[in-house]
């Protein structure tokens, strides 16, 4: 199952790379969302998949009974999802702000920080 998931992650990454290479920064944001999903799945798959055994300890027991899913990557992914959301929200606001300020979503035309060679304005 992990192998199939690995291929799906590859598709996700390919899609997000394609979107992040776009001129339109809104597409870039879409790519950002997809690539954080891909990263989360990668961490998750790296900890191996276990079906139907969440990492919980039964009432009265000291430790989970039998083999349960790997809790560590789940904790990491939880953190990553929230941070990824923070990044996404901030990036989205930046895009909105850039559009109101510059009137374009084309990253090729956003040259305030690194103006083209030639006489500076």
């Amino acid at each position, binding site marked *: 199952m992990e192998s199939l*998931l690995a291929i799906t*992650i590859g598709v996700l*990454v390919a899609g997000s790379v394609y979107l992040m290479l776009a001129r339109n920064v809104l597409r870039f944001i879409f790519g950002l969302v997809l690539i954080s999903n891909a990263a989360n799945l990668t961490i998750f798959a*790296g900890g191996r998949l276990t079906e139907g055994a969440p990492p919980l300890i039964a009432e009265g027991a000291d430790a989970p009974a039998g083999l349960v899913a790997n809790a560590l990557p*789940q904790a990491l992914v939880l953190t990553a*999802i929230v941070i990824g959301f923070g990044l996404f929200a901030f990036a989205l606001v930046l895009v909105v702000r850039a*559009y*109101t*300020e510059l009137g374009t979503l084309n990253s090729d035309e956003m040259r305030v920080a690194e103006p083209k060679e030639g006489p500076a304005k």
Partner: protein
Amino acid sequence: MKDESADTPRGNGLIGVVPIVLSAALFGWFWTFLEPISNGEAVRLVWDWVPAMQISLSFLFDGLSLTFALLISGIGTLVLLYSNTYLAGHPQFARFVLFLFSFMLAMLGLVLADNLIALFVFWELTTITSYLLIGFGHETEKGRRSALQALFVTGAGALALLAGLILLGLSMGTFEMSEILARGDEVRAHQYYLPILILILAGAFTKSAQFPFHFWLPNAMAAPTPVSAFLHSATMVKAGVYLMARIHPAFSGTEVWVWTLTIAGGFTAVFASVLALRQTDLKQALAYTTLMALGTLTLFLGQDSAYALTAFAAFLIVHSFYKAALFLVVGCIDHATGTREADILGGLGRAMPVTAIAAALAALSMAGVPPLLGFISKEIQYAGGLEVASSPVFVVSAVLAASSLMFAVAGIVAFRPFWRPPGGEMPKSPHEAPWPMLAGPVILATLGLVFGLFPGVVQTALVNPTVAGFLGTAEGAATLKLWAGVNLPLMLSLATFAIGFILYAVHRPLRAYLARLDAAAPNFDRGWDRFLDWLKGLAAWQTRVIQTGVLRQYMWTTFAVIVVGVGATLAIKGNVNLAAAFDDVTWRNTAILLLICAGTILTMITRSRVAAITGLGVVGIGVALVFILFSAPDVAITQLLVETLVVVLVAVALLRLPFLDKRGESDHRPADAMLAVAVGTVVTLTLLAVLNEPFDRRLTDYFDATSWPAAFGRNIVNVILVDFRALDTFGEIAVVVIAALASYALLRTTKGRKDP
């Protein structure tokens, strides 16, 4: 820099006196080592520094290092005393003294260090302090340029040196110099002998300004005169010579060693003394004679015989004495008259009698006239040169040429300005220098005379231990004596005087001729400028190519590097098993994964914003389903929540944004698609390689076992988040809060910036 009030022997208060006392105390301390070491003992002091990497602060006191330490601290004391008056009242005197004293300490560390890495650290400290000192007059462009040039040249050499030292340490299994030197045969037989030697010599040659790295030294004369006296004659430039002397026992004797040092040293010596003759600035003339001395020292280090090494030791000492004295004298002249031009200066003997006598003694030593120490040193040089097995004619003729030219330069620097009529109007009427400025030159020049009359003192105290440091025994060391009988060296000395005198007599017309010759020859200093310009051009070009300012190109480069770097590593080391773990594939799971792929592709190819959001939502739900299926309910809940928020936020943002593509444009990018597929493939293969490795459950088992007993939580994921890794979670909250605050700020200021 200098004003009339500075001519009274007035210091700079405590800040001027303390370093003098400290360095005098250091000198006294080193003096106490003199007796045990001249009896053939060696003292090692060791402190651990980075023991895991065999780096220690270990210091070795033996004949060679002690000789250097005494010269450095002794001349250092006199120079500090001198500068206390020379720069009296200078607004940045404290800075100057700090640099100079730090330099002295670094230099002492350099010559005493036994550990290769410690030696390198001190070596670089001398480079840095020297940079600061040369650039002390940083208001002038010349000062800045000279400082930077010295830093670049010696710094580049130092990088080579570091590589060489590390290679040497790794090859020999120890970083302690004393152990390496004891195993010289192993060093010479080692397969890396040649690269190590080349790298170390690159460091030594740049530091000691051997041709073709000589050009920075005359420029370094932009520094205040006491600095030139100290750094660029007596100590720092000798660091390279010291290093070659230090490794001599282990590295010398091979063909490469002999010929490299003999040719580089001999050529530098003659080349520099010819150029010295053409200078009209007294300080520049002395700078070139220093180059000559460094060349001669290198020349003798190339040899193996006890005689040649005695010549090295004797010349090292005598040169430090007379050169420091002469630099200080030039400083006095400059101070008193306001100029250093040989063509203008004259008749100073009456106004500055003490300076004149000190200058004369030092110059006679430099010219090699009996009964001064310089004469003895020169005799030994001839005798040592004649003994050289490989190339006596070359060595002797190099020494003869250089010594004759020295004789002439000595006359130009120390005779003409004092005893010949002036050639022009001097900016200030000359007067005698105050005593602290005279102490240095007088003491150093007198030492040259005293040691010349009683050479036995130098012999037992400094020369024999130094030679013993090379050969293990001082028995072969030549005896320093004034009268060695009528022999070939004496004949050569007489020839030196004759040639030198003729050169002095004709030096003015000769100078014009040399100046023309020099102008026609390739100029290394200008070559340096061209090299720097080329370097800057290269940097500008690569910045233009790499930093285009276009986001897409940055992304392209980043992803391409990932593909090439990770892909190549996978191809070389990867352990990908494509057939693995397809066994538990079910239709239900496959359907979810296909859903994710479909959502991805929809987002990629659509031109509709709503379709894109839908695609994102589909992917997010699919990922949440994966989490649910594989026993991660908490993660799935968070994912669903966040995914919903993402879709809502994008939808809100779209209200303020235009369509994805302008009418008539399409987003069809085949090249990008190929790169995207490549990145995706690399990621998949990497993940497959990771999954192919055996799984390590140790951490998971720890959390499983301790979650309830230690943290009283039954949901292990939650326990990890809020207990075991609580600080991480706190950081995560902080990130979200900062993102929210920043977003709020950005949105609030949306209006207003354009129409204030």
